[in-house]
């Protein structure tokens, strides 16, 4: 658990993935062996990182002329799920049974928490190998980044409550017959009849089989998830919150910041990304075709947002303002420069 971990969070579309890559490139240039774990990079960022070259391997060394090594890892739900099946299925028959389960295809892509689960697994592996001095974790493109952080805990509480055992395991006997409801007497039979009428017992059996197949995976998971949770709340981990510009984002950003702190995470800098420049002698009259007026308006809007945020945050968290750039960074050099800009602002 030695790798200092930076977790980049924020709403969808604010530039988390690019900033995570930028921080990583800067760290490598400063001599730290760094891993960036990313979810949904643009084509050009994939090119820059070279992460789509070899989809089979977990981590890819990014060729970069820097004193530290830069590694990148692209997280993909389906692929990780396949890996988990390979790793945890007790034998070939079980493996085949999972892979041919009609739920597998759908669940491996859509089951709530899968992406989060595997990010935890990978974090655990990375942290326990101690191969990197810095790990930068991008978070999935969702408005609910907090769901992402809470997922391991939710899975743990779900598993510890025994809901899985109660819900799925003993309900079916060796012949696949539904049995536990019998214990509830008449009421139980009514509930059973209800489920049968609503969705059919066949479906429940399929789901039960699917979840049962993963029992060995759950066993170790509680332990690992708790380790990861401990790590996420330790001094080794810092959160970087990325926000879009403009006043209407301020409430959103404060909401995130408060939730992170309440949950016991260590929130580091708040980055306001893509801030329009201030335009002097800004004209007031604006129409649709008036680009200069619009630009001045956007500049005012963004800087008012930053000022408001600065006011409300006080000294609690450093605020970093990243100007809107002519284009997104597309190579390692410009990524590293963006990362350095972030770091410099934090110092000053």
């Amino acid at each position: 658990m030695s790798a200092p971990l930076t977790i980049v969070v924020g709403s969808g579309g604010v530039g988390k993935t690019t900033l995570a890559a930028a921080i990583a490139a800067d760290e490598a240039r400063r001599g730290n062996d760094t891993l960036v774990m990313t979810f949904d990079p643009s084509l050009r960022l994939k090119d820059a990182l070279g992460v789509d070259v070899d989809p089979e391997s977990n981590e890819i060394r990014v060729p970069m002329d820097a004193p530290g090594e830069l590694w990148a890892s692209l997280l993909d739900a389906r692929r990780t799920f396949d890996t988990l099946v390979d790793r945890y299925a007790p034998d070939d028959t079980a493996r085949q049974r999972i892979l041919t389960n009609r739920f597998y295809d759908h669940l491996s892509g859509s089951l709530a928490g899968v992406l989060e689960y595997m990010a935890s697994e990978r974090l655990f592996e990375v942290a326990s190998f101690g191969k990197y001095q810095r790990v930068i974790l991008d978070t999935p493109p969702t408005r609910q980044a907090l769901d992402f952080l809470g997922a391991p805990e939710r899975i743990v509480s779900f598993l510890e409550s025994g809901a899985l055992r109660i819900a799925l395991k003993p309900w079916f006997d060796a012949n696949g017959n539904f049995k536990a409801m019998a214990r509830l007497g008449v009421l139980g039979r009514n509930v059973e009849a209800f489920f049968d009428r609503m969705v059919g017992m066949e479906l429940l059996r399929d789901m039960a089989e699917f979840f049962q197949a993963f029992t060995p995976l759950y066993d170790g998971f509680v332990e690992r998830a708790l380790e990861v949770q401990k790590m996420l709340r330790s001094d080794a981990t810092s959160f970087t919150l990325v926000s879009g510009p403009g006043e209407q984002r301020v409430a959103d950003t404060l909401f995130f910041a408060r939730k992170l702190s309440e949950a016991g995470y260590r929130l580091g800098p708040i980055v306001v990304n893509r801030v329009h420049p201030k335009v002097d002698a800004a004209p007031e009259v604006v129409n649709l075709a008036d680009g200069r007026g619009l630009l001045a308006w956007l500049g005012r809007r963004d800087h008012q947002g930053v000022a408001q945020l600065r006011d409300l945050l006080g000294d609690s968290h450093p605020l970093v303002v990243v100007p809107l750039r002519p284009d997104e960074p597309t190579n390692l050099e410009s990524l590293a420069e963006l990362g350095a800009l972030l770091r410099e602002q934090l110092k000053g």
Partner: protein
Amino acid sequence: MDVLRRLEGLELIVVTGKGGVGKSVVTASLGRLLAARGRKVLLFEVDPRENLHQLLDTQPSGGEIINASPRLYLQHIEPRELIDDLVREKLKVNLLVNRVLASPVHRHFTEGAPGLKESAVFGRALRMVEGHGPSILRRPDVVILDAPATGHGVSWLAAPQLVADVVRSGPIGHMAEVISAFLGDRSRFGVVVVTTAEEMPVEESLELIAALDGRFGREPEAVIANALYPAIDAAEAEDDPATALWRDRRAINVTQLERLATAWTGPLAEVPLMAIDPGPALVGAIARRIEAQLRSS
């Protein structure tokens, strides 16, 4: 057929696109546009953090149907509650309802079963347009769904068929089949894709358009390219940093619009960035812009 006419005739429109492209404001604007053309419109918001009410300057829905302006209504939807409602409706004995709702099977099934929540939202939309709404809005002409930004919008559209495939009997299986058929009917249901003219959103929109074609054999009714920098007038161009930035961002918009045009030749509305704070004025301005653009496309 004229795309505005087509949109007017639909009973359900799903507005989809990547996070941060302005789906909510486009949803509100489409609603405003169709309401102004005489349709009774209900906006569905599924995102747990409500923001449509701010755009329309009304109180938050909190799950209720709110009348925002003439013929325009909005409602915040919690898919879980829709499913619980379904249980209550199908199972009339209270003691049993509580048993089922509290049972781990139900909780886990509704959380884990793929496609169930999405199907429940579509099911509610269908019930509304078929005239089973509450007294405040018995029967909207059209429901517009502001689809959540998680993953690709196509997983939302595929959900009812998925449920229909795995649940072959009972009311849920039946409901899923009815919804699937509804979504397959082009005269009743349409998709509107929102994007910005930047690399990632356009990439995702192109994937979405391809997936719509490949999996459902259909195309969106329209693509809305939002938040564009206006074209720069060469005569007025000065060489200060702000103008340079504007020129560069506009160039990205132009490149990405061209890229979009190689895969999408259907109705397209280009909506520029506007110097208006979020609220009814912005919604109105975007609605007028979309209308003008779709009329000429």
